[in-house]
C-alpha cells in the first residue's frame, strides 16, 4: 500500500528543460514520484513526495528543486520553542530500523 499525505502541499519542482534523462531521481525516490518518459523525467505522483531531497541531491544538472526537511511534528515543535532538537534521540520514533541497512 502506498500512503499519501496532504494534497498539494509539497515544494517539489522539476524543470524538464534541464533534465538529462539519467533516471537517478526515479531510482532514489522511495515513493515513486517520478517516471521516465523516454529521455525526460516527469512528476507523476506529486502528493506522494515526502520532501526527503534524495532526487535533488542526485540530480547532476540541477533540474529538481525541493525544500528538503523531515516531516516530524515533534521536531517542528522543538523548533518553535527554540529547543535544541533532540530528534532521533531517546524520545523519538523516527527510525524504521528494520527496513534499512
Amino acid at each position, binding site marked *: *500500500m*502506498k*500512503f*499519501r*499525505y*496532504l*494534497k498539494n*502541499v*509539497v*515544494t517539489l519542482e522539476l524543470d524538464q528543460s534541464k533534465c538529462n534523462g539519467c533516471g*537517478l531521481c526515479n*531510482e*532514489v*525516490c*522511495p*515513493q*515513486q514520484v517520478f517516471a521516465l518518459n523516454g529521455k525526460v523525467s516527469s512528476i507523476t505522483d506529486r502528493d*506522494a*513526495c*515526502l*520532501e*526527503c*531531497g*534524495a*532526487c535533488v*541531491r*542526485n540530480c*547532476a544538472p540541477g533540474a529538481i528543486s525541493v*525544500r*528538503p*526537511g*523531515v*516531516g*516530524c*511534528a*515533534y*521536531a*517542528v*515543535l522543538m523548533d518553535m520553542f527554540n529547543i535544541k532538537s533532540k*530528534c*532521533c*534521540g*531517546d*524520545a*523519538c*520514533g*523516527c*527510525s*524504521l*530500523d*528494520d*527496513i*534499512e*541497512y
Partner: protein
Amino acid sequence: MSEEQFNLPMVDNHQSDSCCTGEEAALSYGNAAEANWVTGQIETAVGPVYCIATTLKRRDMLGSIKARWGVGRMSYTVPPGLYAVGNPDQSSPVLVSANYKLSFDSLRRELSGLNLWILVLDTKGINVWCAAGKGTFSTEEVVRMVNAARLPEMASKKTLIIPQLSAPGVSAFEVKRRCGFKVIFGPVRAADIPAFLKAGNRADPAMRRTHFNLLDRLILTPVELTALAKPLAAFILFLFLLNLVSVLFAGNAIQTASLVSQTLSDLAPFLAAMLIGAVFVPTLLPYIPGRALSWKGLVLGLIWAATYSRLLGSEAGLLQTASYFLIIPVITAFLGMNFTGATTYTSLSGVVKEMKVALPLIVAAAGLGLIALVAAYFI
C-alpha cells in the same frame, strides 16, 4: 549521546602510513575485538580486517529489544570502519552502512553465504534514513571513510553499494568526483541484498519502495509508549492532587486507599486515550478516514470519548462528559500528529500545514478540557 564506546582501549588495526593526504586519522575500532559479533580477522592489502558474524546471537536480540524501548538507544553503536563478511577479496562488493547497531544487525543477518566488505560510516549511532536527513550519512562522510579505510588501495572495482535511503544525504556524482568511487544505490531493505547482488547490482521496482505495513508500524509503538511515561506520571499526580483537594474541600477525612482507587478510575479514560493515540492510531493508520494524522487521532479520540461517556451513562455529569470530549481527542490528536515523525511518507510542508490548524485547536481544547475537569470535582 554517549561517546564512551569510542574511549575504550583501542585496538589499532590500520596503522596509517598517511596514504593519500595524511589528513585522515587511523581508524580505531574501539572494543570491536571483544564484540560478540566479531568472528576473527582476515589479512588484506591494508592490514587485518575484522570478520563479522551473519547470525544474530541472544545478546544482539536483547540489545534490539532494549533499543526499541529506548534504553541506551543513542549509544547503541558499532565502531566505524571496514569489516569483512565471509571470505572477500579485492574484487568483492563493498556495502556501506550506518553505525547504529540495529541497522548493522539488520544488514549482516541477511548476508550469510556471501563474500563482501561492509564499510560502516560514523553516523553517530543513527539509522540510515534519519542520518541521511540529518547530514551524518553524507557525501563527506562516505568520502572520508573511503579514504580512512584505505579502500582505494584494496577495492579493485572502485564501486560502493549504498543504501537507497541514504540518497537524501549522498550525492552519487559528488562521491565519484571526489574519491573516484562509483556509487550504486542498493535496495531499501537489507533482505533484498542477496537478490540485488545476484541480479548484477540491479534492484527491481519493488526493492526501491519503502513499505509501511502493519509490522513496520507496530514495531514503532514501544518508543511512542515509553515517551509517554513522564506526561503520564505528571497527569496521575495532577489527578491525585485534584482528588485530595476535593476531599479536603468537602471537609471529609482523607482515606488513602479510596483516594488512590478514585485517582486510578479517574485516570482510566485518559490512559486508554494514550494507548489509542500511541498504538491504535499507528496500527489502524490506513483505515482511519482523512489524511492529516492529527485528524486520524481526533476521529479515534471522539469515538472513544463517546463510547466511554455512554458506558458511564448518567453517572457522569455534564462537566465530566465535557472534559472527556475535550481532553481525550486532544491526547489522541496530539499523539497522531506526533506519529508523523515515525512514518515513511509525511513531508515537512504537510506537517507544518497540519500543525497550523491542529495546534491552536489542541491548545484551546486542552485548556477548556482541564477547566471542565477541575470544575467537575468541585461543582
